[in-house]
């Protein structure tokens, strides 16, 4: 399979098994990682990838099986032991401290006693040399998901590990940033380091990975050379059957349709010293169309979402209009009552209360809009109706779970996202605003969510999708606008949009440029 297979394995895993109650999350997993290779770990949500990786990083203890490091049998009893061996990890659910600065976060995972200021300088230098610019003084709580991931990557690299485990690293990067990351990974590989690369993006696995191990339902279902496979054949191995492609019929005569969501010169001052001001953003989303907003993480998308959803109110009530009514002064509930629905970027703690059941999370977001269905006389909750509705959503969105009505935190990221999107779709909202609809969600589930958003728009709703995943935006949008440094470009009809044009706008090229191409087209 690989040229340096003989005796040069950095890590060998034999029969690793992890059992949670009645669920065998990992069932006799075998895995070899050679020195200087990029090894892909593929599988759907719940296939056991995270469990396997947690055992390799010492945060979970296997029930049985052996791990060999450089040919020596080892027990990895804690993350500290893993770090000592030379295993570094970039987490999918970030292990960052929000109340601390980037530099302090990095210092915490380094065991040397060097002062924070020198760590900050080192981190800054390293981050620029790898093309992942980072301000070590910024407070993590103020940073976007993409920026937080940069901290994780830089933190891992500063530990100079032999094996780097990356869990979904590119899901929040622009194509250009991802290219930089791939260069970084290739550079690390040429330095003789090994990388275990977890991703749902099959194209990039094909592009950079030397070998792949595919998991399904906790078992290894195959090893392969991804370069010899097609994305479709890899997906088939992961899912066990064909993944349905997203279908988007072009819309006709959209120019005359009613705008259901109107943003009129929306401006916002920076809320914290680190956040981005919004500069006179205007946008119409009409009934029947999906508009995508592209942009590098941290260019004001979060601030924009907060303003549109009503988490932050506007001075000028007319700056956000929903179904022809001024909504700028309304709270989230007020805007929901006008027929809008919102899905924020962060699932746990924002989109859902982690320690509450799914049915309770359903009630939290819909108690006002569906008051008649869910709340009875005297303000008593009709728990039967809420439960039935949550089961309906679970079925419609194919949410996989371990209990009939589990806590939100007990679901895997992708399954929780399916539930949160489903919760809003179930209302048939006439305006839907989604931030990062499929971040960290596997291919099958992502296709499901995207198709559902398109169908919602075709049934006469206005859908606004903010995403850093360009593939996704090109798949579902009828027009794409780009947010850069708090400014929004004019939406570009999908027929005229190319990766290159959008990428240039994301990088801060003249917004007028896009307008010009629009007019001449």
């Amino acid at each position: 399979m690989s040229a340096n297979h003989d005796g040069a394995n950095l890590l060998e895993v034999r029969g690793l098994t992890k059992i949670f109650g009645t669920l065998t999350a990992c069932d006799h997993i075998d895995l070899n990682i050679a020195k200087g290779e990029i090894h892909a770990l593929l599988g759907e949500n719940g296939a056991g990838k995270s469990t396997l990786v947690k055992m390799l990083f010492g945060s979970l203890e296997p029930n049985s099986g052996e791990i060999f490091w450089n040919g020596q049998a080892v027990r990895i009893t804690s993350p500290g032991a893993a770090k000592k061996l030379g295993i570094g990890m970039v987490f999918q659910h970030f292990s960052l401290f929000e109340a601390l600065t980037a530099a302090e976060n990095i210092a915490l995972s380094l065991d040397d006693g060097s002062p924070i200021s020198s760590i900050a300088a080192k981190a800054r230098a390293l981050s620029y040399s790898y093309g992942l610019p980072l301000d070590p003084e910024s407070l993590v709580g103020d940073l976007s998901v993409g920026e937080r991931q940069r901290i994780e990557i830089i933190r891992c690299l500063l530990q100079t590990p032999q094996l780097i485990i990356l869990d979904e690293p590119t899901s929040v990067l622009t194509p250009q940033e991802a290219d930089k990351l791939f260069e970084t990974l290739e550079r690390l590989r040429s330095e003789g380091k090994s990388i275990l690369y977890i991703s749902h993006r099959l194209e990039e696995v094909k592009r950079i990975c030397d070998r792949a191990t595919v998991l399904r339902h906790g078992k290894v279902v195959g090893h392969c050379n991804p370069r010899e496979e097609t994305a479709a054949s890899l997906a088939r191995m992961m899912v066990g059957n064909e993944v349905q492609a997203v279908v988007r019929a072009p819309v006709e005569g959209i120019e005359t349709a009613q705008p259901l969501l109107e943003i009129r010169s929306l401006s916002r001052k920076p809320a914290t010293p680190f956040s981005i001001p919004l500069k006179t953003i205007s946008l119409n989303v009409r009934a029947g169309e999906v508009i995508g907003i592209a942009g590098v993480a941290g260019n004001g998308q979060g601030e924009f979402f907060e303003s549109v959803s009503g988490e932050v109110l506007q001075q000028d009530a007319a700056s956000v209009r929903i179904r022809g009514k001024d909504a700028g002064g309304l709270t989230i509930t007020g805007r929901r009552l006008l027929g809008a629905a919102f899905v924020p970027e962060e699932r746990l703690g924002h989109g859902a209360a982690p320690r509450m059941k799914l049915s309770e999370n359903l009630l939290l977001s819909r108690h006002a809009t569906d008051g008649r269905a869910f709340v009875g006389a005297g303000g008593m909750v009709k728990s039967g109706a809420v439960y039935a509705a949550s089961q309906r959503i679970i079925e419609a969105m194919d949410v996989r779970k371990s209990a009939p009505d589990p806590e939100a935190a007990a679901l895997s990221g992708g399954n929780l996202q399916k539930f949160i999107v489903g919760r809003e779709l179930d209302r048939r909202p006439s305006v839907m605003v989604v931030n990062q609809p499929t971040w960290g969600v596997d291919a099958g589930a992502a296709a499901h969510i995207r198709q559902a958003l398109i169908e919602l728009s075709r049934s006469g709703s206005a859908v606004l999708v903010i995403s850093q995943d360009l593939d996704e935006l090109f798949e579902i949008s009828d027009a794409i606008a780009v947010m850069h440094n708090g400014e929004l470009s004019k939406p570009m009809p999908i027929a005229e949009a190319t990766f290159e044009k959008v990428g240039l706008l994301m990088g801060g090229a003249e917004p007028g440029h896009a307008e010009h191409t629009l007019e001449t087209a």
Partner: protein
Amino acid sequence: MDITVNILLTIATAATPLLIAAIGELVVERSGVLNLGVEGMMIMGAVAGFGAGYLTGSPWIGLLAAIAMGAVFSLLFAVMTLSLATNQVATGLSLTLLGLGLSGMIGTSFVGQPGVRLPNLDIPGLSSIPVVGKLLFGQDPVFYISIALTAAVMWFLFKTRTGLTLRSIGDSHASAHALGIKVIRYRYLSVIFGGACAGLAGGHLSLVYTPQWVENMSAGRGWIALALVVFASWRPWRVLAGAYIFGAVWIGQLHAQAFGIPVPSQMLSSLPYLATVVVLVLISRNKRLTMMNTPASLGQPFVPDR
């Protein structure tokens, strides 16, 4: 002039036990643990301090006994909440109730006995300088310990790597665990430190403030210390400010009552609480700073999944 100095001295004496107990609890809460047992640990420290001092005749042995008792008593809380992951609020409350009851039982034979008092510092020459001499060089040893402790905790939390680690655990124990930080060990040590501080504060009550044993002599000071930590938004120098504002208004209203000011005594008695809350709320207006300093995982039990 003498009266002013004396009033200032009594303010310091009133503020010292609050400050020590609150600084200890601040460290505990910064590590993400909420120990509502401060009152109980304090009173246990007071009875142990008095008893050991009374039996040996040495107030210093008394002070050490108070510290040790506070630490041992807090260990009970640590085992329950950290190893057995019980509810911190309920466990802390029961620790207070247990401490109040147990100290009364232990102290029955001490009631009415003459205690020993820690001597004030007396540096020849310096202590006799008018005004500043007594304030700076003539107070009881625990006063100096309390100031040094505040400075040390401030330095530890914000200038050392270990302090940073401790704060990170308070912010997110799950993230800290993922990085390989020994969450439970840090929390044990924090809780025991907090217990030792509460014990020392109790020792101050029975060896300095009023050198005798009276049941329930902590009189709610543990609760005030707890409130100070929150209102000071978990920042040491604000705890110091809060403790002294409370002490000052407390002493002030006592004098006012003695002078017979025509204000209902209940009103005057509530003044220290009111003044402390108002001042600390005013200095914590910066929401962002408060958010940064609030331990996000406060009070949540941590069970690492294995």
